[in-house]
């Protein structure tokens, strides 16, 4: 996962580059929590553009971060979901909590 913080808007972007499962999620979670604590962002966007696989570990990941960011008064959004990732979030009601937003993939 790569992260980018935009100071002016206090926006923290997490670009997930790996497949999300039980095996990979622990490392992603640790890094995300570290960066959230470090920057105290107003908004966090998870960019799924390069995620080729995700199972229910992804639900726990975004809901867990949502709770933390919510506590510090920030918002969480998701971008660039492929069909199967969107299907999983939709099915579990995650989209009602964490909306989809537009985000261009930076080069």
């Amino acid at each position, binding site marked *: 996962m790569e992260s980018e913080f935009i100071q002016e808007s206090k926006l923290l972007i997490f670009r997930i580059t790996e*497949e999300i*499962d*039980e*095996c990979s*999620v622990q490392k992603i*979670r640790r890094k995300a929590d570290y960066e959230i604590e470090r920057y105290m962002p107003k908004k966090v966007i998870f960019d799924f553009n390069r995620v080729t*696989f*995700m*199972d*229910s*570990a992804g*639900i*726990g*990941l975004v*809901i*867990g971060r949502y709770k933390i960011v919510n506590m510090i008064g920030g918002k969480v959004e998701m971008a660039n979901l492929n*069909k*199967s990732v969107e299907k*999983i979030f939709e*099915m*579990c009601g995650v989209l009602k909590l964490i909306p989809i937003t537009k985000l261009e993939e930076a080069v």
Partner: protein
Amino acid sequence: MFDNEMKLEFLSKSNNEAFARITVAAFASQLDPTIEELADIKTAVSEAVTNAIIHGYEDKTGVVKIVCKIKENELEIQISDNGKGIENVEMAKQPLYTTRPNLERSGMGFTIMESFMDSIEIESILGIGTKITMRKTIKKMEENLEEDDFANSLRG
């Protein structure tokens, strides 16, 4: 009986998850599934394998077994463990039910398996283990094409 069959056994380590789902997907690909069907199969396998590793064996290491069978255009996947078993299967199947909320589990695994596959059976005995059997019929290429033609003709 079956047209094709494969068996896979591996240790209950989470870094075997990708290997397990990719192997099943490779075996399933002889049925010519669409990319979406293949993604659904991989996700369902990942759910069952993760459950065997984190709930079945918890901190212990055991063997996870997968048997895949193909008959005509139906794929059957059995995923089993000799772990601790499920106390109440009906409860476990409920969306959002999880015994490990502290691990950031969402309790959606069985719901995902149910909706991504055509059917799922759960057999479990406390202290003995758990076996999940999932089935999915892969539509033949021509049927997919026919459906596309039909959809296209509706669009005009």
